[in-house]
């Protein structure tokens, strides 16, 4: 049966493309470096992927809803700078809720422009990307911010703490992924996001409040950024003005690698998690092999192209398509 499906152009493999590629990479890297498959290394990769991962959860939901969010990178800069700066001024118990609210406001702007006014999400969030970066610089006056008493604050537990030997960032990432996976796959809201992303017109004709659904996806994305900012600020205990620069592309790469369709209506949070881990392991593996860090960008790009190709091939039922 497998052979038959292979003959048909390989969709059997292609459908699980991400998983197969993931396993292949793991095998190759573990052969090339004996440190790769150690518990220590794996844990550290998990921990490092948590920030991208939490953000990717939100962006996956936006993309399933048929839109893009490129503003998450500079939104992360904004949220991290804000929470770190306010920490020493008003204490963490006030800094965190204020930062979360402020970040949600940014998400609401995205949601209003894209959901309610129906503007193109690529243009809106690309604009927000630079607008928010500007906002950060205005707020901080170009100064990097630090938390002075790094040992005495409970704020440290989010980035540096651990429960039962598992680092807090990993737990937070896991929790966020599970919560939103459950929402997306078993709750009415999730169903509506898939419907709106799959066919906005038909959703409206079925009485689904399309504008509100899209608006909410951007709030969720902003919430995820706020959570990522707590992990990042707590781990670093300080923040540069442009700490989130380039994160939007890594996040989007993970989402695409996880097989979420950029056309909307299809995708899965758990597969995004796989995409996040795969990117993280590739980057880690390349470093262990002694490659300079910038090689990872080249390799990442190749991996994404192959993933997209296999995805398209699976839909077409063959690897090459002479006529559209």
């Amino acid at each position, binding site marked *: 049966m497998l052979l038959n499906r292979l003959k048909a152009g390989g969709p059997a493999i292609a459908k699980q493309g991400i998983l197969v590629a993931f396993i292949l990479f793991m095998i190759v890297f573990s052969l090339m470096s004996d440190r790769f498959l150690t518990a220590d290394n794996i844990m550290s990769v998990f921990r490092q992927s948590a920030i991208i991962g939490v953000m990717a959860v939100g962006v996956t939901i936006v993309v399933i809803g048929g839109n893009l969010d490129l503003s998450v990178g500079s939104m992360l800069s904004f949220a991290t700078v804000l929470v770190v700066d306010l920490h020493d001024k008003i204490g963490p118990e006030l800094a965190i809720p204020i930062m979360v609210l402020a970040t949600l406001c940014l998400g609401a702007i995205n949601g209003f422009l894209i959901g309610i006014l129906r503007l193109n999400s690529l243009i809106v969030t690309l604009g927000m990307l630079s607008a928010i970066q500007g906002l950060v610089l205005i707020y901080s006056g170009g100064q990097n911010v630090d938390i002075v008493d790094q040992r005495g604050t409970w704020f440290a537990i989010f980035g540096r703490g651990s429960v039962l030997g598992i680092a807090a960032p990993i737990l937070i990432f896991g929790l966020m992924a599970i919560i939103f996976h459950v929402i997306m796959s078993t709750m009415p809201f999730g169903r509506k996001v898939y*419907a709106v992303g799959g066919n906005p017109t038909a959703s409206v004709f079925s009485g689904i409040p399309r504008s509100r659904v899209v608006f909410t996806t951007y709030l969720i994305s902003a919430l995820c950024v706020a959570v990522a900012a707590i992990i990042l600020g707590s781990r670093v205990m300080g923040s540069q003005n442009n700490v989130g620069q380039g994160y939007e592309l890594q996040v989007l790469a993970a989402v695409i690698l996880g097989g979420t369709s950029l056309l909307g*209506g299809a995708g899965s949070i758990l597969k995004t998690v796989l995409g996040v881990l795969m990117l993280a392991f590739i980057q880690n593996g390349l470093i262990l092999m002694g490659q300079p860090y910038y090689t990872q960008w080249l390799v990442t790009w190749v991996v994404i192209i192959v993933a997209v190709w296999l995805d398209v091939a699976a839909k077409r*039922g063959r690897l090459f398509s002479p006529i559209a």
Partner: protein
Amino acid sequence: MSDQQEPALRLKGIVKTFPGVRALDGVDFEVMPGEVHALLGENGAGKSTLMKVLAGMHQPDEGQIIIAGKPVRMTTPIEAKAQGVVLIHQELSLVPEMSAAENIYLGELPLKRFGRVDWTTLFERSNAILKRLNCNFRGEVTVANLSIANQQMVEIARALTVDARVVVFDEPTASLTDAEKVVLFEIINDLKARGVGIVYISHRMDEIFTLSDRITVLRDGAYRGTLTTADTDEDEVTRLMIGRSLDLSRDTAEHSLGEVVLEVRDLSCAPLFKKISFSVRAGEVVGFYGLVGAGRTEIAETLFGLRSPDSGEILVDGSPVQINAPADAIKLGISLVPENRKEQGLVLSMNCRDNMTLPQVQNLTTGPFVSSGAEIAIFDKYRDKLEIKTPSWRQTTRVLSGGNQQKIVIGKWLSMHPRVLIVDEPTRGIDVGSKSEIHMLLRALAAQGYAVIVISSEMPEVLRVSDRIVAMYSGQIMREFTAEQVTEDSLVQAISGIRTSEVA
């Protein structure tokens, strides 16, 4: 058609398989020069695959394509065109931002030295072709600014850039008005007179019987026979197509009418429709008949909360209501099966069950979670009730046939127990067999007490399902007929804007 004449095109024993499907199973087909040969079959019978083989988009696994006596192999549409075989697609495949002339010569623009486009020649040649087609626009016009019918003309003009031997029309009238159809038929007859062989694919029997010389029927990818149009009738063709005969008579079973459920008073929405008044009773089917653009769909959209009216009243069960969004309409028990199934009716990437329960998913919960059991129960109930053919609720709706897709949309609303069911073009693009099933279903629903509004541009359909018929012209109601009063003539007059004195 004399016996010694060579066919313009001949397909012999064409076999084409796709993984798991034998799409074409030894199909024979031929077109003589100067003949209109209709190709018929239900959706999925293999018509489109056969035409793609002919246009060089698919390679046949077995069999021969013979053009003017010579066996040929064609691997691209350009090669097929060079052989004189041109396909006019069902869905327009024009580049809307370009001029008509550029579209006509797309892929083969006349060039000057250094690969520069020879605009003078391009416009000269394309204007000559457009003139031959009696088009009232020039090649310089941007395609996006043309009406659908004129865009179709551009598509046809494309076929005439070469000395076409065979032109294939795939459902050409799907988006044309009656007047535009007349022009199209003239062109087809003109091509025919020039000795071009025409392959004509359509679901509409009346067109096929007006136009064609012979009819070839496919069923399940296999050749079922060729009939001479003059010697056959719709009945025989249908039997060949669906393998059984079809009951086309009107369901006259009397059922008692209930109270007025929906009433509309002086509803206006400039410039789409004005002063619309009508009412629908429980157990009644009211047909809305008129030309495309007469305002029927817009009225339906207003009743469903997708447009807001300028003035007028909507009453449900005798009390005035405000409908600002589809959610309001749904709450009042008004539901709409929209005109365009694939764009407005279904989320094609979702499975059958999820599509059917979409409007009520918020209420089908146990705790915060969607109750899968409740959803499957609803799906099973309406699958059985409407006889939806699908292997499982997990099937994505994309792969279902048009008839089954339409039943999912109807089931979606029935499961909400509405009072009023508005059905816009219920059988567009649906094959004959499923068509009559849907007609019977609409009658049956009325008998169960639903108030049903059917909007249709097909007269036989309106005549068959309606208890009363509202004829519309240019945003106004011209006349109302009861099923007993109505005649085809008076109906045509009414929708063409001709006022006749009311006959008692």
